[in-house]
């Protein structure tokens, strides 16, 4: 079993797990965590593709690796905004929840 296949399978599993968590986890922080997990799974698969493209004496294709680095930073930015939103929501509403109690504000 090559690491390429192995980590591809792991990445797929991680994506599945995080999709599940994203759907059912009620707290936005948990959703955020699942999103980060989803991101890491996608990045891991990109890494596998980079590893697949190892050639010319390099251990992996540098382009996907560079893109993953950019992706990680972008994902972190999203996390930072989300955490700030979450905490502000928590302090405004006493609880951070994105489920609306009733539809359409009165």
């Amino acid at each position: 079993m090559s690491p390429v296949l192995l980590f591809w399978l792991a990445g797929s599993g991680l994506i599945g797990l995080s999709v599940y968590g994203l759907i059912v986890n009620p707290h936005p922080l948990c959703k955020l965590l699942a999103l980060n997990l989803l991101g890491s799974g996608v990045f891991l698969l990109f890494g596998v593709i980079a590893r697949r493209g190892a050639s010319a004496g390099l251990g992996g294709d540098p382009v996907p690796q560079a893109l993953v680095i950019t992706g990680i930073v972008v994902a972190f930015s999203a996390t930072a905004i989300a955490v700030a939103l979450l905490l502000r929501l928590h302090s405004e509403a006493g609880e951070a929840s994105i489920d609306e109690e009733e539809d359409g504000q009165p």
Partner: protein
Amino acid sequence: MIFAIMAMILLPLAMALLLLSPALRPVVVRGLGLAPLPALLLAAAACGGSVSAFTFPGAWRYVLDQPGALMLGACALLWIIAGFAASTWLAGRGGRGRFALWWLLTLSGSLGVFVAGDVVSFYALYALASLPAYGLIAFDGGEAERRAGRVTIAAALIGEGLILAALVLLVVHAPGQGLAITPLVAALPSSPYCGVIVALVVIGFGLKIGLAPLHGWMPMSYAAGPLVATAVLSGATSKAGLIGLIRFLPLGEAMPVAGGIILAAGLISALYGALLGLTQTNPRSVLAYSSISQLGQMAAVLGAGLAAGAREAGVIVAFYAVYHVLIKGGLFLMLGTQGRRIAAWQLGLAGFAALGFAGLPFTGGALGKLAFKDLTASGATSMLFSLAAVGSTVLVLHFLRLVRAAAQDPKPQLLSPAAWIAAVIAATPLQWSLFAAVTGASANSALRPEVLFDLAWPVAAGAALGWALAAAGTQLPQLPPGDIGARLIAALERQAGRLASAVVRAETQAHQWPVSTLTLAAALILFVALQTVFGPR
């Protein structure tokens, strides 16, 4: 002339814009009666039978032909009369700017629709003639008026939808014909969807003219709102539906089946309206049913024309419509004077004019009926038309009785009697002067004894029947305005409400996070699965 057309459509819109300025508002309100003036000039120039067309940059096209000009002239006259009446009525009233706005918008569409020569202009002006009516009906009213307005506008919107479908089908299946109505309609009989298009046209415009069983909204609508508005809505804007039928039915082409169906529907409407009108106690509703009956007869004539491939049916119907415009508008205006006493001579005048709907000799209506004869001469049809005339007579008598007996209106609207008298008096000479131009026959032919007899017997029979009914004290059942149509509307309202609530509930479910994300995952799987199953190999 091109400027006259522009002026006719744009002047009311420009006046509506001027309403934005509080300083000019009273001036505009005072000038409501002047807004239709260009139309009057235009109509005078073209009712002789010439056809002129103008194409503006883009695909905008305007056509002035005889049917259009006839109705245009009559409607313009009614708008002018009603406009002056409205100005005086509005003086010092709150919200007059609003009323004037809706008035002017409806006016622009209602007149413009008679000259629209391409499908887009027609659709736009038709919508302009229909939708702002809401504001006129619901003006200063309570919940009942607003409901009437809502129902009217719902009917208008549904009609618009059907008409749009018809127009697009016309365009799609006549490739390369552009958007002008004439070539499109000429290509209609060869279209694979001819039946569908004709059905859409008939139902769409049938809604506007209250063809039974699509008439439910009409009595509701005419029973609500200020009478000065009802006068123009019943007199003028309902003719937008008529011009629609004239323009979009391929009248030159003999289509016996479609024509027969329209003829039947029109006749049913004519008789139905006359009969059901007798069950009404509100004069306004009675007039509405009379409209259903009259417009039904006009549709029937169009149907007969379509069946026979008689192009002149359009002109003939338009000619009769002139009378209907002025008299129906006039009668509604008369109801608006009920705060004062209606003198006996006034009632007599109104009766004389209204019996024109039944073809009373010497009225303008009689000339219209006479013009029908060319197309409705065959035995059964002719009998049914005569029967409709009998019904109209009874209905008119019923109306007059109701007016005479009516108690003082608790909320008198106090229109000047001059308005309705002007409208009613104008109608008959107008018809006489136009008769020759329309039918090609001399107006004197209407005075021949056999013709007079033909016209008179249904009126006499109707009068006798009406007298008999009254003498016997027959009490017809009283039905709510709109009868089964109103029931249908109420049921639709309920169902629509229920459906909307269900949709809103479903939407509320769908925008829950878990549902939405789950749907997203499902959509993803479905999408990829579909791609893989059906995808290119």
